[in-house]
């Protein structure tokens, strides 16, 4: 929010951010805010954006926010959705809004599962994680598939700016938010958000966990600006992914003898993704 001086209107998908900030009769939002449902935050903002265009056309909106009318000025439109509301149930609505080219920023805060409803797996849950709906057990090592590559899905809509960020790197996140908000047309941020609920780690390790995700290359920080890849954080000697996994209860079972191959597979996937990213960015 600090990344722009323009007024901001927020559309929020159903999720932990929504339920914790708008318990009637209170609201934590000091700016205009709308929550309508789970899968449609991008479609909802499409309507808000069209309303803004209509109002601008009718000259009801003043170009600057200083105006004295009820319509204060052209606003930045921001969506917040979790990974469930973005990778899964809201993907169609997001895709439609990106294709139509509405001017808005979509922020997916990604904690790798449906945590608000008690820790079910989503399309954003990483390989091997223990969730309530795909639990580890005698016959299972937890999530059997890799998460979707949401960045590539969003990128393929041909939008001008998208970036992967991490709450543990706030300066990097703010820089990306600013760029995203200055973009003409749609922009997108995929932000890693550690969650103590299902990741199962002490809250005191919150920032540490976030940092480990990037230091191990599990969650690289990068931007795709007009199709060009830029890596924002390069590890000369990246830590092993085990460092990130071992701190979390959801991966505890992977350290049992029978599941160790899964850790290898995760490491392989992390290495592969990093290599691809380096190639795309043209760096070495």
């Amino acid at each position: 929010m600090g990344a722009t001086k323009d007024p901001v209107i927020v559309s929020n998908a159903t999720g932990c951010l929504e339920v914790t900030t708008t318990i009637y009769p209170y609201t934590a939002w000091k700016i205009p805010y709308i929550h309508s449902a789970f899968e449609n935050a991008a479609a909802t903002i499409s309507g808000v954006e069209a309303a803004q265009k209509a109002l601008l056309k009718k000259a009801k909106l003043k170009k600057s926010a200083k105006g004295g009318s009820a319509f204060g000025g052209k606003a930045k439109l921001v969506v917040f959705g979790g990974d469930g509301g973005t990778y899964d149930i809201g993907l169609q609505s997001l895709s439609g809004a990106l294709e139509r080219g509405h001017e808005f920023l979509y922020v997916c805060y990604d904690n790798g599962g449906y945590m608000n409803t008690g820790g079910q797996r989503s399309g954003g849950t990483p390989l091997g994680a223990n969730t309530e709906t795909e639990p580890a057990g005698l016959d299972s090592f937890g999530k059997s598939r890799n998460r979707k590559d949401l960045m590539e899905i969003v990128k393929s809509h041909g939008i001008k700016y998208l970036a992967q960020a991490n709450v543990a790197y706030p300066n990097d996140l703010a820089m990306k938010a600013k760029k995203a908000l200055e973009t003409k047309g749609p922009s997108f941020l995929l932000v890693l958000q550690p969650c103590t609920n299902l990741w199962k780690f002490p809250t005191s390790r919150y920032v540490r966990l976030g940092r480990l995700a990037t230091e191990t290359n599990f969650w690289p920080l990068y931007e795709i600006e007009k199709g060009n890849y830029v890596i924002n954080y390069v590890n000369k000697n990246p830590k092993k992914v085990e460092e990130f996994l071992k701190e979390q209860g959801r991966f505890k079972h992977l350290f049992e003898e029978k599941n160790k191959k899964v850790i290898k597979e995760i490491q392989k996937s992390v290495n592969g993704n990093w290599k691809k990213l380096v190639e795309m960015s043209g760096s070495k």
Partner: protein
Amino acid sequence: MIYMTNKIYKVKAMTGGTAAAEFLRQAEPDVMAVYPITPQTPIVETFAKMKANGKVLTEIIQVESEHSAMSAAIGASAGGVRSVTATSSQGLALMHEMLYIASGLRLPVFMYVSARALSAPINIHGEHGDVMGSRDAGWIQIFSENAQEVYDNSFIAMKLSERVKIPAMVIMDGFHTSHTVERMNVQDDKTTKKFLGDYKPEKSLFDFKDPTSFGFLALQNSYFDFKIEQAEAFKEALAEYKKITSEFKITFGKSYDYFEKYKLEGAEYAIVIAGSASGTAKEAVDKLRSQGKKVGLLKIKLFRPFPYDNLAQALKSMKGIAVLDRAISLGAYPPIYSDVVNALRSADCGLPVSSYIYGLGGSDILQDEIENVFEDLIKWKFSKEIKYLK
């Protein structure tokens, strides 16, 4: 057809779909969010051409589904502007979740429904099954018999919706009305714009001085109160409908009521029906009346809120009634029948009422079939069994 007392209208040949688009041209909503589906498409296609030819400023969002159509319409309406959409059948079903959210947020979204059967089996033809599935969603619902009523009802629905903050759907029968060319009267642009006035929202997302949060989490201590408030708004809508139809009469010289009474005066037996088949039913009434049979018809227009008291008053002097529904409520009596019986019982009226279902999936209903329904009433052939006219 009641003709107007003023002389500023034009006579035109229009389908229900083009009549809807013509209303939208005059109302010029700020935002339309829409997804194509048969038999709704004539509405949006006609309107899109108007936009392409610079006749309206409306922002049209070509969304990727009906769920997103209603979501975007909600977003726009929360933005404090007039927002509309249109759909049919599967589209309305896909919107279902969002219908409750539009009404729960008290946003006056306006929608045309070209009513059509629901899958499975898939069928694209006229029926009321889709709109009946939405009857508890907190929307004003108004049925139209023909293109003229589609047009006229739109003025009443949009004004009513904005006044009581309840979204509204104007319903036409898929194909029978949406695609059939009829002679109708179109009012002049100036009068129509004056009648509708500017939309002045109580709250808007674009009010940055007094920002509003839309879409709260309401827990056990408040959710119930929200629903009671909506129910009260529906009571208000019933009274406001009356006022708006009076304003409509003053402006356009036409009388509209909760329902149409056709030759009910002096009638002993009546049929209750909604939508395009009312025209055929009126022919049946005329024929039997010419034979000296005391029959009449009550055509449902305002369906939600349902005018229980007025309807009971209009029917209580009959000897017997048949309700013809173009929808099936599997495992129960059909919707209009149930509402009519409730209206009569709550007025302590114990008239016999028979239930007939007709025209599912666009199947024809013929005049002699309706005449036979009247003959059943006259011969006192009432039963608890639902009868199918097919």
